[in-house]
Structure formats: structure tokens, C-alpha cells
């Protein structure tokens, strides 16, 4: 009997293609939209996280200048070479240190020119900022010591000045000096914030100081902690040392700022979490709308189906037999609709992720939630009116208009 009823249920689905399709459509849309939205939201979040990791997760940045904003104008002392030597000594083994300075500069090669940023630092800069060399190599010790006229260029600069040519060994003019290109770094792409991370030229710090700025000041010091869990400790060490060297009285506000990427990441995580929550809420609304769609079509078909129930009851079906058939029908429609919705949702989110250059993220929990919700709505609204009708006496069910 169960098998016969199941067969009967499927026959009914097949006999009413329009009604079946509309019911399934509601479920398909509900499930697919939730999956697409949440998958894209998570993909975007994953991209943001990956971008930050690409900037160097264990990165700390010390910059001169007060954290305090407001009318009190204070011209902060830049860092000195001695400060750098002191932190290198202090953080031996705990963190790598890359003192740096940067300025905007016009780059010229032959008749090509390009406005970019030139940064002076050491080889540690590549490691701390997670740049990898694609061609050539970094600076030699002697080039760093002597302030040689050499540079490593980012992939954007390479494209702008060299096109597809190999730039290693060529010379470019940076502001007033000619520099030999010794290396090219691999592209990191656009950052989450829309910044081109590959549009830069790196020269040894001594080169930058002596030939470009003429000052031995250090604009910014980058630190790369060796272990992520040591970041707070490294930060405290840096602050304590710099306070001492810059003679900040205990309790006074420092005239420098040390930021860790970990803190920035944490802030961003809050933002992305809010983003995901928002998308989830929107998805929830669309699921609700899908649910109402399912409910409507189920309720609209109830008149016709009440008569059907009356016919079945009058020829001797028991209420529970009719109900079982309706339950199977509702479950089959919801199940098929849900499956199609999942398939469609995954396909569409995969495609959209590709289109938007986001990583595709599979969202099993959302798939489950969306499916269970739609299926529940489908079954509930397919079943409840049927239950009501099956309790009518057959005459009333037959007369139902």
C-alpha cells in the first residue's frame, strides 16, 4: 500500500505539471538565493582575510606622530638610524626589522614614464611584507651597505615600463638617479582596499637616504614577528624601547604609533562578520519570500484538492491514506525543488565568484538550513490544508468551492 501510495503521489505530481513546477520554483528560488548570497559573502570575507595575510599577518608598523588627533599640533621627531640599531638589538630572534622611507617619484625608461612610489629599505622588507621575487634577486649586502644604485620593481611598474620584456639588468631613472633593475616581485594583486600593491620600486635604504632624500631619518619601521602569538609582547617591547629612546615621561602620550596587522585584522574581522550577518539576514528574507510563495501555491490549489479529497473519501479512502499521499507529494516536491535549488545555487555562486574574482566558498550549513526550511514550509503547507480537508465529511469536501 505504501508503494502504491507513493506511486500515486508521483503520478499526481506528473499530472499537474504547472502546479508542481510553481511549487518547486518557490523552493528552488528560496534555496538558491540563500546559497548564492551566503557563499558570495563568505567568499568576500575569505578574500579580505587572504589579502591581509598577503600583507604579512605578523606585521607591525611603527610610525612617528601622535595617536591623538585634535587641535594640539605636534611635530613628531622622525626615527633615527640609532633607533633602528637599538630595536634590532632588542628584538634579536623575536622579530625581523625593516626600516623604511618612501616618496613619490617619476620613473623613466626610454620614452616610457610612470608615477609610482619609491621605497628605501632592506631585504627584510620583502619577507615582512610577504613579497616574493619572480625574476632576479634581492639586494646584496654590499649594495645595502654602500647604497648602490640598484632597485627591485613591482610587477605593475614592470608592465608599465617594460611590457613583456625581462627588465633585469636594464636601467631605469628614479627621480634624478639611474638605477639598475636587479629583481621583480611577483604580483599580489589589488588589495581589499583597492590599492595596487605591485606599484612600487624598492631601493636599498642607504641609496634612498643618500641619493634621493639626503637625510638619514627613517620614516617608518616595519617589524615581522617570528611567531604570531608573540605579537603583543613584541609590540610592548617596541613601545617600551622607543619611549625610552625618545624620552617620553611615564604616563605621557607617546609621539609615535605602533600598529599591528593582527589588530587591524581583528577590526576587519568584525566588519566582515557584520557583512556576513547582513547577507545572512537578506538571505533569510528571501527564504521567507520563497516560503510564502510555496505557501501561496499550496493554498491556491487547495480548492481543487479538497474536491479530490472528497472524491477519494467517498469511494472509501481513509483520512490517513489520503493524508499520506499528500504528505508524500509535498515531500517529493520539496525534496526535488530543494535539490534543484542547491544545484542551481552552487552553480550560480561558483560562476559569480569567478566573475567577481572571489574564492568560491562551499557553504554546507547554509545549504542544510535553506533546504530544511524550504522543505518544511513546502511539506507543512502541502500537508496542513490536506489534513483539514481529510477531516471534513466527504459531502462537505465534495461541495467545497
Amino acid at each position, binding site marked *: 500500500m505504501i508503494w*502504491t501510495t507513493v506511486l500515486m503521489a508521483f503520478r499526481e505530481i506528473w*499530472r499537474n505539471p504547472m502546479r508542481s513546477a510553481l511549487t518547486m520554483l518557490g523552493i528552488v528560488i528560496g534555496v538558491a538565493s540563500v546559497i548564492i548570497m551566503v557563499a558570495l559573502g563568505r567568499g568576500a570575507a575569505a578574500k579580505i582575510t587572504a589579502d591581509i595575510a598577503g600583507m604579512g599577518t605578523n606585521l607591525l608598523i611603527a610610525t612617528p606622530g601622535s595617536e591623538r588627533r585634535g587641535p594640539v599640533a605636534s611635530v613628531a621627531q622622525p626615527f633615527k638610524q640609532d633607533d633602528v640599531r637599538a630595536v634590532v638589538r632588542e628584538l634579536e630572534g623575536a622579530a625581523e626589522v625593516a626600516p623604511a622611507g618612501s616618496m613619490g617619484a617619476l620613473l623613466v625608461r626610454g620614452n616610457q614614464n610612470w608615477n609610482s612610489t619609491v621605497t628605501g629599505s632592506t631585504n627584510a622588507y620583502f619577507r615582512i611584507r610577504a613579497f616574493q621575487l619572480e625574476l632576479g634577486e634581492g639586494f646584496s649586502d654590499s649594495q645595502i651597505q654602500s647604497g648602490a644604485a640598484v632597485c627591485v620593481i613591482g610587477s605593475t611598474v614592470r608592465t608599465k615600463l617594460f611590457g613583456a620584456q625581462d627588465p633585469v639588468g636594464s636601467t631605469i631613472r628614479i627621480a634624478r638617479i639611474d638605477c639598475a633593475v636587479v629583481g621583480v616581485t611577483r604580483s599580489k594583486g589589488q588589495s581589499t582596499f583597492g590599492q595596487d600593491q605591485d606599484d612600487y620600486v624598492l631601493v636599498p635604504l642607504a641609496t634612498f637616504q643618500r641619493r634621493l632624500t639626503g637625510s638619514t631619518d627613517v620614516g617608518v619601521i616595519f617589524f615581522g614577528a617570528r611567531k604570531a602569538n608573540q605579537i603583543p609582547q613584541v609590540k610592548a617591547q617596541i613601545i617600551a624601547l622607543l619611549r625610552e629612546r625618545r624620552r617620553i615621561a611615564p604616563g605621557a602620550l607617546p609621539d609615535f604609533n605602533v600598529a599591528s596587522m593582527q589588530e587591524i585584522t581583528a577590526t576587519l574581522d568584525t566588519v566582515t562578520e557584520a557583512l556576513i550577518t547582513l547577507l545572512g539576514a537578506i538571505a533569510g528574507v528571501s527564504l521567507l519570500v520563497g516560503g510564502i510563495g510555496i505557501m501561496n501555491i499550496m493554498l491556491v490549489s487547495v480548492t481543487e484538492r479538497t474536491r479530490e479529497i472528497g472524491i477519494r473519501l467517498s*469511494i*472509501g479512502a481513509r483520512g490517513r491514506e489520503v493524508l499520506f499521499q499528500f504528505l508524500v507529494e509535498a515531500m517529493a516536491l520539496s525534496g526535488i525543488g530543494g535539490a534543484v535549488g542547491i544545484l542551481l545555487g552552487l552553480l550560480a555562486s561558483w560562476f559569480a565568484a569567478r566573475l567577481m574574482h572571489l574564492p568560491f566558498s562551499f557553504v554546507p550549513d547554509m545549504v542544510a538550513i535553506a533546504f530544511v526550511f524550504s522543505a518544511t514550509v513546502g511539506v507543512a503547507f502541502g500537508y496542513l490544508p490536506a489534513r483539514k480537508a481529510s477531516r471534513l*465529511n466527504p459531502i462537505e469536501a465534495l461541495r467545497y468551492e
Partner: protein
Amino acid sequence: MSSAAPGTPLVQLRDLTKVYGSGESEVRALAGVSLRIEAGEFVAVMGASGSGKTTCLNMLGCLDTASAGQYLFCGLDVGPLSIDQLALLRRNYLGFVFQGYNLLARTSALENVELPLVYRRVPAAERRASAIQALRDVGLGDRMHHLPSQLSGGQQQRVAIARAIVTRPRMLLADEPTGNLDSARKVEIMKLLRDLNEDRRITIVMVTHEPDMAAFAGRIVQFKDGLVERDSAQVPA
């Protein structure tokens, strides 16, 4: 049911009463009907609208329950039975033909006729064979795979009759079976019912308000204001 003692009437109504609503709006559709129907009879139930004839038919068909009085079917008191037990009674012993045919839409004639057998758990092959035979019996052997919407009113009513007799019921209940048909079709359907009664010995109780149709029956029960006004035997047309 088959264990009923010989001489037990198929149907016995004792002072059957049906009241709809309550208080001011109370309607006494049946005001104490007593009636005996023997197996093999063809009874036409007549009366003006509101006389209680359809209510009485619904009672006989176990589609509705009485407010007071007794209904014995083959000697069994139907009153205390549960809804499910009434459904089983309909499934195993009764067949219905309605004025509006009440066929399942978008479902072939054959499948409509098979439906009662599905609920009787008849195996598929046997089910199909019985349904085909029933459709041939009503003269629709060549229309088995048509949908109700592709059949004329008379043909649809024939499908409904085939559906009612495919289970070989003890009693066939027909509520204005010719009500929606033109006069030529009416006579065809009535002849079919008379043949079923005479050849198959199927007891038929038919509600009609047309004397021409009632003429095919062997007995006419006239209702008035919820009571049997006249009960007379006749020679069927």
C-alpha cells in the same frame, strides 16, 4: 457482514433523524425516517428540493451521520462506527454516482475506475483487468485512456458508474445521476442502471426529481418535509 442472518434486510432505517444547525437556525432535514430496502431492489427516492431525499441518500452511503435513530446495514448498526470504519464500509460495500460525476481531473478514465481498487489493495494487474472490464460493461471500452475533459457528460457519468461497480458493491447510491444530461443521455444512463440492477442484482438507490427517470425503478419512495410521504412498488419501465 456476510454473516447476517437470512431474511435480514440490506438496509433498515429506524426513526432516522438529521438536524443541521441549532437553536433558531435549526433545520430538521430528516424528521424520523423509517425505511426497509431489500437486496436487489431498485429504489427511486423522489421529493421536492429540501424534502430530505439527498440527506437520506448520504446517510445510506455512510457519507454523513445521523443525529438520532438507527441505521442498520445488513443488520449492523452503523451509528457507533468511527470515521475510518465508515470509510471501510464505503470501500467494501458501497458505490456512488453523483450528479456532477466527481471524476479526478487530468486522470484517465481507466485510472479513475481503478481508484477504488487501489484502496482495496487489489494487485495492479488484477486492478487493471477489472477496470477494463467495468469500462466495457458501461460501453466505454474504446475510451479508456481519455481524460474526463475529453469525454462528454454522458460518457463521464458512465466512467463514474464503472468506478462505482468495479468493486461489485452491495448497494449503488446515485444522486441525480441524470441531472446534468440531455434527454437522450438520460435514458441511456437509466437503461444502464436498470440493466445493472436486473442482470447483476446490484441494489440501487437513486435520488431524482424527474418522474421519467423514477419510472425505471421498481419502487418509488416519496419524501416530504423530512418524512416518507408515500412508498409504492411499480413495474419498471
